[in-house]
């Protein structure tokens, strides 16, 4: 691990533990990540017994060299973006731990678990009410959006 920056050291540790003990339904493309620790692709299966059962999604994590002090940029990517009141059709996710409530004690695993639970607690598949407007006007980087967090109970 010599020669790594502090962010890379931490990401390497996270990668090892995620490969070893992945949360249910979550897999990481370890080979890809080893090539570039600052960008991860994670596969996420919709949990059984939820509205997303049988679906699978891809999450992209981008890290800056200030990670973990700076939150990762997390978006859904690929062909299947979950239809959810907090997920915009461009893959941006309205989740407070990804910006205001980020803490360096959180991790890729914690973010994944949080997103799994966000999906699992969904009662009706629909897009956020301002989806069309947001998708047209937002920055590419969801962290540049000033989110007004929706009701956390959904």
């Amino acid at each position, binding site marked *: 691990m010599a020669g790594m920056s502090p962010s890379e050291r931490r990401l*390497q*540790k996270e990668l090892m533990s995620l490969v070893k003990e992945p949360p249910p339904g979550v897999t990481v493309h370890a080979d890809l990540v080893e090539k570039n620790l600052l960008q991860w692709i994670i596969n996420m299966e919709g949990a059984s017994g939820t509205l997303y059962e049988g679906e699978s999604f891809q999450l992209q994590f981008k890290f800056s060299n200030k990670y973990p002090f700076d939150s990762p940029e997390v978006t859904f990517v690929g062909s299947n973006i979950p239809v959810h009141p907090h997920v915009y059709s461009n893959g941006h996710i309205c989740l407070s731990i990804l910006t*205001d409530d980020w803490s*360096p004690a959180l991790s890729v695993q914690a973010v994944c678990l949080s997103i799994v639970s966000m999906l699992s607690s969904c009662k009706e598949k629909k897009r956020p009410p*301002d989806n069309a407007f947001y998708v047209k006007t937002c920055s590419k980087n969801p*962290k*540049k*959006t000033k989110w*007004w967090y929706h009701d956390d109970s959904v």
Partner: protein
Amino acid sequence: MSSSTSTPSSSKKLNEPNGSSGSGSGATDGEEKKEDRTFECNICLDTARDAVVSMCGHLFCWPCLHQWLETRPSRQVCPVCKAAISKDKVVPLYGRGSTKQEDPREKVPPRPAGQRTEPENGSAFPGFGFGDTGFHMSFGIGAFPFGFFTSTFNFGDPRPSPAPRGTPQHMEEQFLSKVFLWLAVLFIAWLLLA
């Protein structure tokens, strides 16, 4: 470090698939790691160096915690449990092995007090958190509140605050909120005038 007798609650599966190949570096030291994990810094995940512990009992390297406190000077909370935290309220830990008994907090001198706005990347300002006033605003250059359609529904709802109401800590936060609100106003004015 690891004594032979104490392996606290290692509920680890014994016959773990040994290979877990792919991740080239040290898959074998997993066992040691579990034992040491208690003393890992909650931020860098390494064994804490220049260790300090917060009043809420969470362990960090002082350099790591210091950097976090600097990241959000307006909202200093424990990364693990979100309790209020500050430089003066952490306790340095001196293990037997550590020769120098100097306070680790002296080593990374805190930057001068007052609001330094770091010229970082020209992107976003690390959120001005307005605590619990029911008015939340943070902004970055080039970022505008696009989510406001949805937010109008629950505009008045204060977001959950780390400190319970009525406590001195809460009052302090309220006060700080106001201070930062004014700073933000001044800053906007400055932006407009400059």
